[in-house]
């Protein structure tokens, strides 16, 4: 029973990582850049939901829509202001800009919402599900997160496979120069990618803070890094990979803490990343990249 309850906790944590990892992997897969500010867009999304629910008393659905709108606008603005001017620059320059953007968002949040942590309100008015005579508790947040993961993963896969914009995204991902020559508006495609990634961040922020109801300006950073690890673990750029990597990472983290040592929880997570990268450099579901000579 202890094993089962650890497994449930692991999947619960993992599905949170997965939903954040989806945003990372989506932007990386298409724009070929690591948006390290993703975790902080999640934090902004969570704050918007918090304000909408706590101060403006909006119904839950409107809270989520408000957060998605703000995050989408924020994502597009960040992309236009910080990343677009660096389109021709080296990958390293963009990476450093993204880290700078992450700190900018954190400190702006500190200015607006202050340093005091806030406890996130519970938006889902559902009760915990008890199994096996009350020995195993499943939180409704866990089920909602898993459902959201599956819906978003399917929707993203279909969007990229079936729509015209999705096709453009795949082209940009494969060869940006050639895509431009074929008349695809690369800048717009990348902006759309950021918009979708940021809207996902708003949902991830809501789900993260619903499961772990602690909200402060640094809330997004550690889950962001873990989710990035999950995305690399599953194969960065691969949408099912992000989901698989996220869930596995969550389960590994909880099992590591429960059966090895709580002190080594994070060390185990990152050790797994190193081992996976040594054995399978492209991650579990990543496509091997052939170097042409």
């Amino acid at each position, binding site marked *: 029973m*202890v094993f089962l*309850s*650890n497994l449930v*906790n692991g999947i*619960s*944590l993992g599905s949170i990582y997965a939903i954040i990892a989806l945003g990372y992997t989506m932007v990386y897969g298409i724009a070929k850049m690591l948006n390290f500010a993703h975790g902080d867009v999640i934090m902004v999304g969570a704050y918007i939901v*918090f304000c909408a629910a*706590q101060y403006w008393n909006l119904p839950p659905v409107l809270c989520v829509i408000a957060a998605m709108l703000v995050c989408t606008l924020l994502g597009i603005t960040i992309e236009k202001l910080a990343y677009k001017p660096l389109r021709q620059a080296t990958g390293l320059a963009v990476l450093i800009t993204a880290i700078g953007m992450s700190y900018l968002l954190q*400190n702006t949040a*500190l200015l607006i919402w202050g*340093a*005091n*942590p*806030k*406890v*996130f*309100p519970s938006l889902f008015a559902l009760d*915990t599900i008890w199994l096996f005579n*009350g020995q195993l*508790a499943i*939180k409704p947040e866990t089920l909602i997160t898993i459902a959201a993961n599956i819906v978003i993963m399917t929707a993203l896969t279909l969007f990229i496979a079936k729509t015209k914009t999705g096709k453009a995204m795949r082209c940009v991902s494969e060869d940006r120069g050639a895509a431009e020559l074929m008349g695809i508006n690369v800048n717009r495609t990348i902006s759309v990618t950021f918009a979708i990634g940021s809207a996902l961040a708003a949902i991830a922020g809501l789900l*993260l803070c619903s499961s*772990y*109801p*602690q*909200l*402060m300006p*640094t809330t997004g*950073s*550690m*889950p962001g890094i873990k989710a990035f690890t999950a995305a690399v673990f599953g194969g960065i750029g691969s949408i099912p990979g992000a989901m698989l990597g996220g869930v596995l990472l969550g389960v590994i*983290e*909880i099992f590591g*803490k*429960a059966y090895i040592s*709580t*002190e080594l*929880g*994070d060390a185990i997570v990152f050790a797994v990343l190193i081992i996976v990268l040594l054995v399978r450099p492209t991650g579990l579901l990543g496509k091997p990249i052939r170097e042409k000579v």
Partner: protein
Amino acid sequence: MKKIIALVLVLCLALAASAALAEDLVLKIAHIGPQTGGAAVYGLATYRGAKIAADEISDADNGIKVELLNEDDTHDAEKAVNAYNNVMEQGAQMIVGTTTTAPCIAVGAKAFEERVFMLTPSASSTDVTADKDNVYQLCFTDPNQGSASAAVINEKKLGTKIAVIYNNADAYSTGIYQTFKTKAEDLGLEIVSTTTFTDETTDFSVQVADAKDKGADLVFLPIYYTPASQILIASSSIGYTPTFFGVDGMDGILTLEGFDTSLAEGVMLLTPFVADAKDELTVNFVAKYQEQYKEVPNQFAADAYDCIYAMVEAAKIAGVQTGDAAEDICDNMIAAMQQLKITGLTGAMTWSANGEVDKVPTAMIIKDGKYVGLDN
């Protein structure tokens, strides 16, 4: 026209002269603490508490003015030393700070070499005062809290099987845990589960499940209130309701925005300051703090408030004059601190030669969303 200007000038001179005649003692005290970053909540609280005390003293017109300098150290030892250099260049005579332990150790070493008197409101590790005669603490030391908690649990028979959840990335939490463990073993208390977390931990399900599995009836939480709130939420979600026992870091849990305070019902803690207390000093302070900063002060703010009063009293005993250099008054301040007896928001205090404060921790329990003495 010239006459008018001359008249004005003369008047100005006269005013300046009369101000100089009153000869207010101006003390330049510098506050250093984290005001941005993850620990900002503590540094902001100590700054605000100190500011209120400084303004009170300056406005009282008792011939003493406190000029409060302020620097942010972002809870980083290196930045704290830079902050220290900055305030010393601005002519600081003594330092209230630093707020958090690691920066305080770094700044304390530098201040020891340069002979600058420091009184920290909240850096509670014994490493802060060790081998440094110039650093004084106004908060309890970690060992003091750990052993006092074990003693109270034993004396009041609060639990037979104890679980501890502590932050092993934090010197404060680890320090209290270690002395708690030693004292608990001495007293024959049984610790059945010990689990840890770090500042980055979001998920507390494993720690809480371990305590529940091992049948702990009391969970000792030598941690700050933010992770404590998460532990209370995680416990309630699996229907686990032991007695929770915290230390001074638990103070603040009732004012955490969005937190369902019914979860904190029955939580016990050792704390020197209670914002709900009805004595005049506390009521005034809380009212001023709420008016200026729109929130209820925590014990960090109260400690810093007491710090300023203690420093001003000590400066009077030491005979500090306006413009005295920090290194010239340091030894006198140290001597004065050991004679000082003062009663502030956090109780009656005296200091020993090693810089540790002597005051009584009180055990409190949360009842109907308020702190009540455990003995009541």
